């Protein structure tokens, strides 16, 4: 019996142990299955997140290919020139938004409009391709800056509110349409630029009759202009650097008149309408940077050559002769007066230069001074301009014969004797020197405040027997007539207070 009980107890205990083990295994199996399910669930979630992350990364990487930058220059200016009215005003000088799209490394598309009140203009629109092998050459095509130091130096960084007078005269609007090949080897601090442009970009041609023959900035003739520039940099250790270079401009514009004058208003030669009139100039540039109690720079450029202007004819002016207000509507009657002012083409010898002295004062302030000179006609001095000796001279051509001038709509025939009595040197030939000062304060990386004062000095022409300058210019401000007499340096100073926000 005892044995039976013992056997029973042993069997029961064994059964219980087996049951416990089986149950344990069963539960363990359930736990493992559940754990595996959880892991798989988390894996699926991670895969989902990963997939979404890749989509976001793709989107972000596409967006990163587009970069926006720009700046706004708001300013107040005060003019001391009595012929300028209003004499002070607020304006938005520049409001640029530059978009750069780089679909792949080394290729960029740039679009930069300028928004100013009442005006939207296209500044930059070009494609730039950098070759990936030598990493030396880049090709640009579209509308971009001409290849000159001050032209390429951004307005947002420039130390004076406006570029030098000579640069503004030679490169109006700074940009031009064409292509450029730029070589900048990585191992040599040399840069060579060769560019070909339409050449007449942003020039107003035939301004006498207030019509612009060059309104679309497409091109005005079949002649293309070539620009070449090379610069080299000498590093002067921790002291600074000396950069120097040269550029040449080899261009042409079509003749629009049969008479072509030289700098002294003498008939140089007769040409056919559509013939090539060359304009060529050469420039030297230098930029010296020195770390003397903080950064300091002396920068300058000297340019000389021949500039061509095309002929223009008949001037039409509209004057309001009658106006009346009726039923809230202003009725205006105008009269058109046509005067036959005629200018044959002229090629003038010119020269000019600018020199900047810039000193950084601490990290936040900068002082700049510039002296720039532009002589649009080096053959005529102060004692020549406006004199009868330097009026139109028909040379060996007959005074009674005609010169033909063509503009965008018509052809005008003028007897040379008429030109002889009306055409001569004047304000376009007067040399200017301009002294400018500017103080910049950088509030932070985005905000710069500038206080600048520009003092232009006109060349003083001789006086006639009546004690009046040989060159004068009439104006009317608020109904009061006045006259600028170029035998004196008359006030033309400009005070500018500008705030620039850049991003």
């Amino acid at each position: 019996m005892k044995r039976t009980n013992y056997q029973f107890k042993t069997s029961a205990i064994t059964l219980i142990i087996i049951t416990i083990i089986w149950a344990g295994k069963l539960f363990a199996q359930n736990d493992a299955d559940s754990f595996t399910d959880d892991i798989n669930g988390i894996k699926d979630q991670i895969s989902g997140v990963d997939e979404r992350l890749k989509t976001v990364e793709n989107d972000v990487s596409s967006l990163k290919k587009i970069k926006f930058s720009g700046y706004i220059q708001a300013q107040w200016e005060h003019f001391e020139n009595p012929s300028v009215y209003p004499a002070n005003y607020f304006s938005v000088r520049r409001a640029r938004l530059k978009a750069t799209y780089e679909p792949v490394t080394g290729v960029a598309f740039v679009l930069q409009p300028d928004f100013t009140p009442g005006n939207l203009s296209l500044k930059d629109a070009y494609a730039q391709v950098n070759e990936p092998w030598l990493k030396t050459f880049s090709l640009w095509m579209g509308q971009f800056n001409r290849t000159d130091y001050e032209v390429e130096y951004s307005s947002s960084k420039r130390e004076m509110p406006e570029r030098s007078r000579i640069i503004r005269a030679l490169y109006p609007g700074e940009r031009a349409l064409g292509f450029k090949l730029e070589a900048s080897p990585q191992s040599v601090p040399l840069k060579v630029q060769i560019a070909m442009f339409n050449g007449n970009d942003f020039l107003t041609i035939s301004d006498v009759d207030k019509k612009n023959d060059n309104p679309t900035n497409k091109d005005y003739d079949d002649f293309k202009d070539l620009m070449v520039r090379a610069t080299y940099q000498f590093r002067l250790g921790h002291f600074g650097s000396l950069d120097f270079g040269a550029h040449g401009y080899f261009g042409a514009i079509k003749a629009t008149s049969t008479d072509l004058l030289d700098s002294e208003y003498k008939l140089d030669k007769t040409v056919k309408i559509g013939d090539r009139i060359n304009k060529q100039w050469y420039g030297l540039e230098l930029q010296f940077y020195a770390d003397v109690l903080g950064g300091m720079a002396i920068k300058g450029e000297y340019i000389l050559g021949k500039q061509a202007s095309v002929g223009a004819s008949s001037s039409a002016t509209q004057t309001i002769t009658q106006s009346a207000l009726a039923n809230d509507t202003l009725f205006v009657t105008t009269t058109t007066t046509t005067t036959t002012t005629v200018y044959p083409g002229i090629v003038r010898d010119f020269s000019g230069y600018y020199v900047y002295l810039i000193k950084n004062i601490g990290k936040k302030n900068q002082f700049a001074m510039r002296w720039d000179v532009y002589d649009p006609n080096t053959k005529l001095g102060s004692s020549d301009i406006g004199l009868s000796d330097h009026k139109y001279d028909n040379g060996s051509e007959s005074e009674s014969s005609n010169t033909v001038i063509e503009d965008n709509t018509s052809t005008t025939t003028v007897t040379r004797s008429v030109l002889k009595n009306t055409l001569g040197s004047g304000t376009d030939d007067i040399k200017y020197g301009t002294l400018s000062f500017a103080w910049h304060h950088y509030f932070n990386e985005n905000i710069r405040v500038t206080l600048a004062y520009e003092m232009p000095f006109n060349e003083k022409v001789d006086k006639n027997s009546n004690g009046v300058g040989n060159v004068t210019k009439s104006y009317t401000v608020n109904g009061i007539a006045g006259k600028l007499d170029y035998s004196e340096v008359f006030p033309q100073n400009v005070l500018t207070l500008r705030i620039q926000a850049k991003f």
Partner: protein
Amino acid sequence: MKSSTRLLQALSFVLIAVIGFAFMPGPKKITVKGSDTMVILSQKWAEAYMKNHPEVTIQVTGGGSGTGIAALINGATDICNSSRPMKRSEIEKIKERYNSTGIEIPCAKDGITIFLNQSNTRVSELTLDQLSGIFSGKIRNWKEVGGEDAEIRLYGRENSSGTYAFFKDEVVKADYAANCQTLPGTAAVVNAVKNDKNGIGYGGAAYATGVKHCKVKKDNEGKAYEPSAESIKTGEYPITRYLYMYTANRPTGEIKAFIDWTLGADGQALVTEMGYFPVK
């Protein structure tokens, strides 16, 4: 008063202001920004310097060499750390803003290390051409360089990093492969390779813990070297570079004192201690 006298007075005022500002005492707070590769070294320098100069505060942040150089140009930092030399375009920006060419101070040397997972036993050395092929995506499988039949997974730095630019210019010599995962900082690259048996990454030697250092040789015939003080000093290790500090102008005051100290015996001892290589 004559206008020439007024002009003279105005110029005198400007001259006095210029000299006055120039001799103003430098800041007691120095900001250092830039290379992620140099962050741990720069922080160590700052800690040690501030310990001996409690009146000076040095704030060190990373972000990458490109970010640091941009901050220097914008005036947002006093010193920029960079693991690559400044580009010509960046020097031009310094010129435009500060009318100086920037001051370059080589302060340490570094060998860019190739990180492999420790379980990758079959690959222990690569040539520069193989590395170029791997990181440009031409070589996609480990078996092409003597490893197992497995896809190579690439880890690298973001494009604001000097290490990214240096490695691209000196080794890859092409665009990085599209599947190269970019990570913020060398530490993140090391961590990614540590957890991926088919991974390969690059970065500063100072961060390389828990991963295998791949030996590198210039070509098939050459001898492969690991980045070490000796191989970097002799130039035998082929991916060697200087690490730089940049200032916009010649440093003065506390900034100069700090830079001089980093280049001195104490500063250079920390360079070695942190796993970089001294310039002297």
